[in-house]
């Protein structure tokens, strides 16, 4: 994955950058499978590698496929991103150990979900049960966000077309 990122930043041909970004998504999906998050991996593979690659290519068809030469040195942005990255790494030091069964998230509501779900919902996939039943409000919000995003795109792009053909 690190190699992909370095190649993406060095590459000036945007077409290959898009393809490499899809590759990165697939690698990310394999990492998620290794961490037993199959549902997330599926989403990453279909959205990150599938749909967004197509949308990027669609955007590329509208503009030039060569990246423009930068006009000034990207020293400040580099420093800023390094600082934020260091801050995030510092933040992870405070997190509980990976797969620690006494971590706060595993002792709060998770035992109830895992033990009571069989009698309350009886759906073998716990992710689906939590997503659609216990956290139904959150998923409703997410669906509304997706809907709003779609409406936003429609509102932005359609006005342009109307201007063209009065």
């Amino acid at each position: 994955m690190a190699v992909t990122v370095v190649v993406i930043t060095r590459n000036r041909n945007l077409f290959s950058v898009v393809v490499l970004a899809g590759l990165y998504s697939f690698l990310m999906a394999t990492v998620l499978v290794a961490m037993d998050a199959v549902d997330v991996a599926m989403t990453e593979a279909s959205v990150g590698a599938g749909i967004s690659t197509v949308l990027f290519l669609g955007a590329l068809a509208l503009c030039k496929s060569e990246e423009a030469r930068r006009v000034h040195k990207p020293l400040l942005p580099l420093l800023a991103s390094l600082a934020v990255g260091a801050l995030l790494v510092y933040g992870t030091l405070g997190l509980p150990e990976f797969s620690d069964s006494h971590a706060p998230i595993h002792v709060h509501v998770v035992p109830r979900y895992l033990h009571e779900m069989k009698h309350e919902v009886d759906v073998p996939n716990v992710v689906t049960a939590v997503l659609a039943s216990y956290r139904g409000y959150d998923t409703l919000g997410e669906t509304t966000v997706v809907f709003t995003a779609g409406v936003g795109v429609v509102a932005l792009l359609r006005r342009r077309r109307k201007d063209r053909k009065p």
Partner: protein
Amino acid sequence: MGGRMRDDLILRVIAKLLIPFILLFALYVQFHGDFGPGGGFQAGVILAAAVIFYGLIYGLADARKLVPEPLVESMMAVGVLIYGGVGVAGLLLGGNYLDYFVLDPNPVHGQHRGIFWVEVGVAVTVSGVMLKIFYMFADRGRADDEDAS
């Protein structure tokens, strides 16, 4: 988009072979989401991907004929309405908003029913939005080309 791809025999045949399986897989992910990985969001994306694939190979006009624009636009709203409707149905049957227990005399079956319709709502909205965005982008590129010529 896909002007030259339309004439490629290999692409056309492979697309025709693959698309039914992609659609079937989307349905599998949708309805098997209770038992394995997957669910409404993933199924919606795969469904949209199948139509986008068709549009890339056979051209945007054919994809529009297959899944017309008004249908896509109403899908975007209908999905959210299905989701909200499940909540309102719970209210009408005497529970709280988005309570699934009341949807069936047996509370566990009520949960199944609620999850099923909620996932349908998510899938409909997600595939509608993805398709609409694709249509918008692809269409815009073509409009610019026509202007340039």
